[in-house]
């Protein structure tokens, strides 16, 4: 069922105008007018297909083995990338769940790009896998392993040989996450 307006329940994350834009984009990507997106629809985006982390990014839209991406799911992932300064933190009701674009949630999004098996830790093996995606065939296995080892060692505090989410956030304390993981939709 294709509606010409986005479903109402999503107001509260993006502005109405932005939601409309995203809805048009969703419809444009849905080439066969199925009403949902498949992995193939996202893979057809040229700039995404050549992105070294393209497959991982697509994975984040299809969690738990889902095969269909509906519009709320689409917005949920994109909401992680809303700039943080868009809302005034003083007004937010502390009882409500943390907004998707908070610093924590942005970091969580990045973390799950690494943590394939969702066990809450980035193992050395998972680190190697992501590195391999980003460098392709340009770097030898030994060089890559030493990079992975060094990175895990630097971040690993409790010595379990893997990087937990807290260790991850700690090592990125000083990083300007807001700027690096934000996409601003023009008014």
């Amino acid at each position, binding site marked *: 069922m294709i509606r010409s307006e986005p479903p109402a329940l999503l107001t509260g994350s993006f502005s109405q105008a932005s939601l409309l834009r995203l809805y048009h984009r969703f419809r444009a990507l849905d080439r066969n007018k199925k009403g949902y997106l498949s992995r193939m629809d996202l*893979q057809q985006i*040229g700039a995404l297909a050549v992105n070294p982390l393209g497959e991982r990014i697509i994975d984040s839209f299809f969690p738990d083995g889902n095969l269909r991406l509906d519009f709320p799911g689409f917005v949920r992932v994109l909401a992680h990338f809303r700039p943080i300064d868009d809302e005034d933190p003083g007004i937010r009701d502390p009882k409500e769940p943390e907004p998707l674009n908070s610093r924590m949630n942005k970091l969580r999004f*990045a973390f799950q790009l690494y943590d394939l098996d969702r066990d809450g830790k980035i193992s050395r093996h998972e680190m190697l896998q992501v590195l391999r995606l980003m460098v392709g065939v340009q770097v030898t296995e030994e060089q890559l392993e030493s990079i992975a080892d060094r990175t895990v060692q630097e971040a690993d505090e409790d010595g379990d040989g893997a990087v937990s989410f807290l260790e991850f956030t700690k090592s990125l304390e000083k990083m300007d*996450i807001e700027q690096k993981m934000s996409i601003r939709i023009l008014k």
Partner: protein
Amino acid sequence: MEGAELAGKILSTWLTLVICLILLPSAFGVSLGISEMYMKLLVKTLEWATIRIEKGVSKESVLKNSASVGIIQRDESPMEKGLSGLRGRDFELSDVFYFSKKGLEAIVEDEVTQRFSSEELVSWNLLTRTNVNFHYISLRLTMVWVLGVIVRYCVLLPLSLKNWLSELVHLTCCRICVRALSGTIHYHNKQYRPQKGGICVANHTSPIDVLILTTDGCYAMVGQVHGGLMGIIQRAMVKACPHVWFERSEMKDRHLVTKRLKEHIADKKKLPILIFPEGTCINNTSVMMFKKGSFEIGGTIHPVAIKYNPQFGDAFWNSSKYNMVSYLLRMMTSWAIVCDVWYMPPMTREEGEDAVQFANRVKSAIAVQGGLTELPWDGGLKRAKVKDTFKEEQQKNYSKMIVGNGSL
């Protein structure tokens, strides 16, 4: 009875009017200046309408205005800056942020998918509203087009092989069709018009491209044999000028195609071949990768750039959305088609240049001339997945950064 007589009289006077005003001048290539007046009127009306609309701004037109610019704020800095600003630094956990941000940006908006939706107009152009004039003009246009088709069939089909006569009739019919579409075409650099025995190469926006080019000269067409309406038109055209048609199965055999084309251009008496190397319609703002097949044939290439003025009508044909007939109807009922055609000096393949480089050179020349942006993406990307070479580029850049400095 009176009513019928009156209707009959009106019809006959109208018919005579049509014939005098359109057929005769077309045959002699003389313009009565009506088209120019019509254009001026259109421009004035559109400007007035735009101002009116801008005064009473609605949400939709606001969105449309900014959508044509791009909906997200982009940071176009190269990979090095995006990652940290220092060259030769080591891998960090945060490097994924750069790639994931670029990936998400692509999901929200990317160049290729944008190219394939109709170019959004900043000034709203009345096509979505109706008024009395609109209906009247569309009826007139349809009648003229039908007349043109009839003339074409009745005159072209029983034609004998007198070359000059057939060229004249051919040109006349084309001009009629163009009038039917209320087209105004400006030809530039006519001295470079493709000569016999050459290959004419142009960028492709709509099937009307063919019409526009043939109005100014006779070409031999290369293409598939189509069924349906296109097939009938094709057969009619073959009688006028000798074309090169292929069955679909023959098209798959590239060598066969190349051989036949080579034969055609070797014969200096034959008309220049018209080829659109892009292979699919692009929406008038960019020139996609030219397929190299056309450039392997050899011979002289005469590039032609075609650019439509989008203010007057959207000539773009999205073949996966509209079929031929509905597209033609849309074209009939647009206000007008205005376009510019630039003929360019002939180019030949240079020493040590392979077909791909030659194709790119011609593509750049056409893009520059027509004021279109060049895109490296293959037009077939619309329907197919992309090659891995582009991904390798990014991977190479990244690897150079984290490994190249010898810190390991």
